[in-house]
């Protein structure tokens, strides 16, 4: 049985006097114990909302959540606020995007680590401090005894993200969700943090849901990849398969728009046309159709269904033929 089973997860935001907004629209995926699964897409595709819905961190008012999120067989969406509170930090840990704003500026790092140990592992403060020191050591923070007494503003960006990872992993959760954990960091630090995460999840046997817009992150880390567009999974496959043979025009476009070091001089990048603002509602066809180079008439008339094609899930009327180069060259 999978550790995490997300089925038909839908999140609708309803604000007074506004049209309801389907941020997540029937998303399903599994995470096996110890596996790393990627959720990939542009901002606005619903990947962060998905993670917050799993963690039970969406506002009670204004967000309607349906579907099931089974963790070890229990549907997290059916748990009471208190039961969910007991699980967060213990069974599920989360790392956020901006390490500076994600740490409390007026509380020392030490306490921000120990409070979660005190809460879930019932450790007295002293014992928790020793454990916290080990944790900081483990995530590669030098001189942890000094750092425990310091405040977030005294740490570098990379250190802060390491501290946050230590906090999220303090209680050895079986599942870690990382929401763009490297986006706010310098490029050189990004690689360090990613390899740290890879190492830790392997050592601890933690399953990881990696949320990112950066296919480079996915390539180095994930076993399975879900590509999200407009709140729906449009393509899902094992990493190698997806990178070798992207079938959905959106995935294809994402891959084609990555700058490559081995590209010939003068070779042009291939961005995806338009922006998420051009979407049409899924109920009227394929949301990506207005930006899609492969779009047919049927794409703006019939909602494409999810099809299983030999271990690959695809939601497209006119997928890319394997081996096609970047669809159209646009001068940058």
């Amino acid at each position, binding site marked *: 049985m999978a550790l995490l089973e997300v089925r038909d997860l839908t999140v609708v935001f309803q604000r007074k006097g506004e049209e309801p907004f389907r941020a997540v629209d029937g998303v399903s995926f599994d995470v096996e114990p110890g596996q790393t699964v990627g959720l990939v897409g542009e901002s606005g595709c619903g990947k962060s909302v998905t993670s917050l819905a799993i963690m039970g961190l969406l506002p009670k008012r204004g967000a309607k959540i349906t579907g099931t999120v089974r963790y070890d067989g229990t549907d997290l969406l059916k748990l009471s606020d208190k039961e969910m509170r007991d699980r967060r930090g213990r069974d599920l840990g989360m790392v956020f995007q901006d390490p500076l704003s994600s740490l409390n500026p007026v509380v020392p790092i030490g306490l921000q680590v120990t*409070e979660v140990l005190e809460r879930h592992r019932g450790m007295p403060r002293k014992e928790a401090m020793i454990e916290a020191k080990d944790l900081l050591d483990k995530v590669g923070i030098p001189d942890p005894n000094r750092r425990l007494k310091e405040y977030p503003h005294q740490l570098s960006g990379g250190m802060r993200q390491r501290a946050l990872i230590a906090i999220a992993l303090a209680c050895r959760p079986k599942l870690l969700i990382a929401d763009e954990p490297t986006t706010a960091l310098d490029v050189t630090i990004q690689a360090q943090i990613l390899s740290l995460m890879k190492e830790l999840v392997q050592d601890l046997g933690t399953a990881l849901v990696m949320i990112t817009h950066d296919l480079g992150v996915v390539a180095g880390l994930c076993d399975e990849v879900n590509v999200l567009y407009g709140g729906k999974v449009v393509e899902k496959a094992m990493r190698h398969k997806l990178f070798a043979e992207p079938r959905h025009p959106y995935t294809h476009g994402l891959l084609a728009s990555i700058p490559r070091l081995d590209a010939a001089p003068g070779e042009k990048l291939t961005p995806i046309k338009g922006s998420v603002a051009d979407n049409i509602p899924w109920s009227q066809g394929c949301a990506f159709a207005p930006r899609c180079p492969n779009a047919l008439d049927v794409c703006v008339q019939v909602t494409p269904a999810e099809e299983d094609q030999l271990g690959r899930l695809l939601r497209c009327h006119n997928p890319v033929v394997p081996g096609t180069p970047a669809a159209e060259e646009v001068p940058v």
Partner: protein
Amino acid sequence: MLRYTIRRLVQLVGVVLVLSLLLFAWLRLLPGGPVSALLGERATPESREALTKQLGLDQPIFIQYFKFLGRAATGDFGVSTGVQPGDSALDIFLQRFPATVELSFFAILIAIAVGVPLGYLSAKRRGSWFDNLSVVGSLIGVAVPVFFLAYVLKDVASSALGLPSSGRQDAIDATRVTGFFTLDGVITGEWDATFNALEHLILPAIALATIPFAVIFRITRAAVLDVLDEDFVRTAESKGLTAPVIRRRHVLRNAMLPVVTTIGLQTGALLSGAVLTEKVFSFAGVGEALAIGFERRDYPVLLLLIIMATIVYVVVNLLVDLSYALIDPRIRTR
């Protein structure tokens, strides 16, 4: 930190000197002035001239000012002409200062004790009827003239609750130690005196507390709303911490920073409000002396009390700024 404190204190000396010069010039130069104040509008020119000479008012203003400073250095700020005629201005201040400190202390205590929790709850329930009601209530609190509210409390609440409606304490046999009546009773063990002083304090303190309360409430609410949107609160939630820990350690500890600054600024409202409230309740503090002083144009008393109010206001704000540095590690450890 020390350099900063010293710089601020030097600035304070500058402000006090400029202010005292301005006040001094105002007393001497404006139509009327102390002579009219002492003799009335209809005095004969001869008696005016005599008094002018006697008071040294015929000398250039700067000479007069330096003479005044010289006397002030020895504690001689002149003699009251209206508040307690014949008493020295400094004595009047020293006598009455503890009363106003006591009153202001209780007022700000009430304002914080009610304003902060209410502001927090209001922010947590943003948009609810509770929130809307509290916000409108706080806006009305600012719109009510303080002295009118004081009168309503004095006439309506005092009889309804059986509380005394004027004075600082009944003529009971109490030992005086510090001049703070509530504290004296605690020190000497005369609990009835403390209780009696508190009974006299409660209504004026409530009247005086309204504006600071309204401001503290709104600042707390705004600060909590800001903090609730912060990423680190979401982190705290993702750690599964209990609601009280999140509230105390993560929300309030951050939201209190702007509130502390506001509390310093509210001492200004307290000092001004004390003038009105103490007058209504005949509460024998600095505020009442100022009220009577304005009414009877008692310039020596006004001069001293206004300067003292300024010093208190500036020093309290300096202390608040320093404490701010202590509670905000981002400033402390820079």
